[in-house]
């Protein structure tokens, strides 16, 4: 194995561990910290099904953002949809042709949409970057990290597109490398600069996920304003520490 391949094997495992452990750690924290009070933003659903529907409209359609600002919505929604499509297309590099999932991954629609998604992603990201630069309100609230995050993903999308349209890499060898990571049967990684750049940036993105605003992805599901049921009169809501206060003075008896 080449030294380069060994380094990337280590980086891949490190990034995966940081991503999974880091996000799991954050999610555990969000679960562990209690929500002592009912603070649903109303009108709020009365049933669990209603909450699922509320999240569907938020996660899939970005409903609140749509109500807030159409430009950010269109750029943001296109970007995230492209991200999903690009992700689905990339599954071909990690799923064996023998897998029951392969027919799905290999669907023409998944593969071709995934390809064009790269352009849509750049369109969305450029729009978001432009808003950050040119809208005075958004510029004011932006930190260097907010710009860098967009530039990072722009660079990932651009390097991906370059590999598809300009400098091809050895896809077969790449897949062998990736599958080798799963099977602990490590293989060489092609050493094209664009591929290495693409992978390095993706690995970096994975590593900063749990320590950056990318936490909005899991965090979204833990906003009491959105997941709580609107039933405070019907069902008493009491946190452990709230109960402890009560137990101390006994005034709720």
């Amino acid at each position, binding site marked *: 194995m080449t030294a380069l391949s060994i380094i990337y094997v280590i980086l891949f495992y490190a990034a995966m561990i940081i991503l999974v452990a880091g996000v799991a750690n954050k999610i555990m*924290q*969000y679960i562990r*910290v*209690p*929500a*002592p*009070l*009912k*603070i649903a*933003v*109303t*009108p*709020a659903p*009365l049933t669990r099904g209603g909450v699922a529907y509320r999240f569907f409209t*938020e996660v899939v359609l*970005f409903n*609140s*953002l749509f*109500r*807030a*600002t159409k430009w*950010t919505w269109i750029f*943001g929604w296109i970007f995230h949809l492209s991200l999903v499509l690009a992700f689905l297309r990339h599954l071909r590099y990690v799923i064996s042709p023998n897998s029951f999932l392969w027919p799905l991954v290999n669907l023409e629609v998944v593969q071709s949409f995934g390809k064009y998604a790269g352009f849509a992603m750049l369109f969305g990201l450029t729009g978001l970057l432009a*808003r*950050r630069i040119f*809208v*005075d*309100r*958004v510029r*004011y*609230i*932006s*930190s*260097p*990290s*907010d710009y*860098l995050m967009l530039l990072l993903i722009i660079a990932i999308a651009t390097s991906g597109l370059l590999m598809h349209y300009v400098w091809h890499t050895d896809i077969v060898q790449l897949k062998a490398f990736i599958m080798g990571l799963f099977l602990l049967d490590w293989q060489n990684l092609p050493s094209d600069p664009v591929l290495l750049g693409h992978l390095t940036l993706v690995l970096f993105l994975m590593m*900063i996920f749990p*320590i*950056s*605003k990318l*936490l*909005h992805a899991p*965090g*979204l599901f*833990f*906003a*009491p*304003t*959105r997941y709580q049921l609107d039933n*405070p*009169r019907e069902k*008493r*809501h*009491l946190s452990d*520490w*709230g109960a402890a*206060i009560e137990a101390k003075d006994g*005034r*709720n008896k």
Partner: protein
Amino acid sequence: MADYETPQTHEFPVIPTVMEGVMSHSAPFLSNAEFQSDLGFPGDGNLIDGWEDKFKDLLGDKLSKYRSLQVFMDTCVKCGACTDKCHYFLGTGDAKNMPVARQDLLRKVYRRYFTFAGKYFPKLVGAVDLSEAVVDEMYSYYHQCSECRRCAVFCPFGIDTAEVTMAARDILAQIGKGQKYSNQIIAKVHKIGNNLGLPGPALADTLEGLEEDVEDETGVKVRFPLDEKGADILLVTPSADFFAEPHVDGLMGYGKVFHAAGVSWTLSSKASEAANFGLFIGSYEQMRQVSLRIRDAAKELGVKRIIFGECGHAWRVAYNHLNTLAGPWDFLDQSYPIPQHILEFTKDCLDRGILNIDKSQNDDMTLTFHDSCNIARASRIGAEPGSQFTIPRAVIKAVCNNFYDMSADTIHDATFCCGGGGGLLTDDLMELRVKGALPRMEALKNVIADKGVTHMAAICAICKSQFTKVLPYYGMTMDQIVSVHQLVSNAIILDGQGDADEEESDSEEAA
């Protein structure tokens, strides 16, 4: 008036250009040692010794107790969706009145001490060290938030600035920088029973006077009972209802509805206040103490039901938190909602046709309705999600012939705060209150121009007081704000009321 100008209203809303620091001078009076210690807070308006460590400890404590705060500190992506949603930003143009910028005052400290990126790369992620300047800025701008949650409606992640404001205010109070207005009021509730410091005998006098007023007007003896043991219903209402205008006309309305419905009810001198400023200062403990008065009063009086009068944040606390803080309510009649809103009661009476209504009594007015933020976005009235919007309008339409809504993006859950909520209804914040009222005043002026509206009805004591004060700044008159139950009071014809009034329209139930 003062050294600032009332903002211009426009036919269509204008998003101001971001300006730095134009409201940095605005801050409410600090609490002195007396009002701090009344609530168990230290200091006298100055930072206490060792305040930096205390701040970090308190923030850590909040993060471990409030999922909302922990999640909201992490999930903001700075998308900008909230930046043009706050009435204080729209009215002042101050950059730090954009909700995300307001949150960031605490978030940048959170990042510095509680996140990897902020500890090692503070500049990159906009993290800062605690300093007196940072704390002063927090004191100023966390008192330019009325905790109205309009930003939370539009945030893709449901981030609620009110949660951040409450956490920040509580931390500030615990390092010596409490707010005089709210602290003083909460102390009065503990000592006397209500925000206004109206003792029991004065309250009894006032209610007696009210009975006389109603009898003079209608010829009918409508009772306003106080501390009557064995009554079925305990009415808990904001103390402003006892004498402020137009609040008191609303109280007359509740009394007439109860009278016409033939129920027995009472007020309590102990729980003679619906408001709960514990919410505003972000103190679970204070909010609980204030709530428990209602539990104690209900038990002492032996009532079966609790009904709340017209008040926004009071209803938020009552609806969402009374069960949590002062429950369980197993000693009350479980066949009614606990607690119930006066509009739920009145709407039910109207639906059952037991009120004799003459809508023409309100024909001198053309109404619009201001959705109070805490009722629109933080609670519910009625059985269905969103019935907090339909029920007040249905009641207004049942007692008035002329009603028009304001522009759609300023009502329902997109309603604008009156500009005086969240513990800011104090004279030392008059500039902020005038400017923060801009979006609502603009929508009101437009519906006046387009539809000939003459009056705006509200169901919140703070809204009513705030509008009474700021309407004149915008070229309107203070009596253009009315209580919803004032309209009910005008239209209701009690049994035995002067025959001249009983001509044609008997019970009409539009809804």
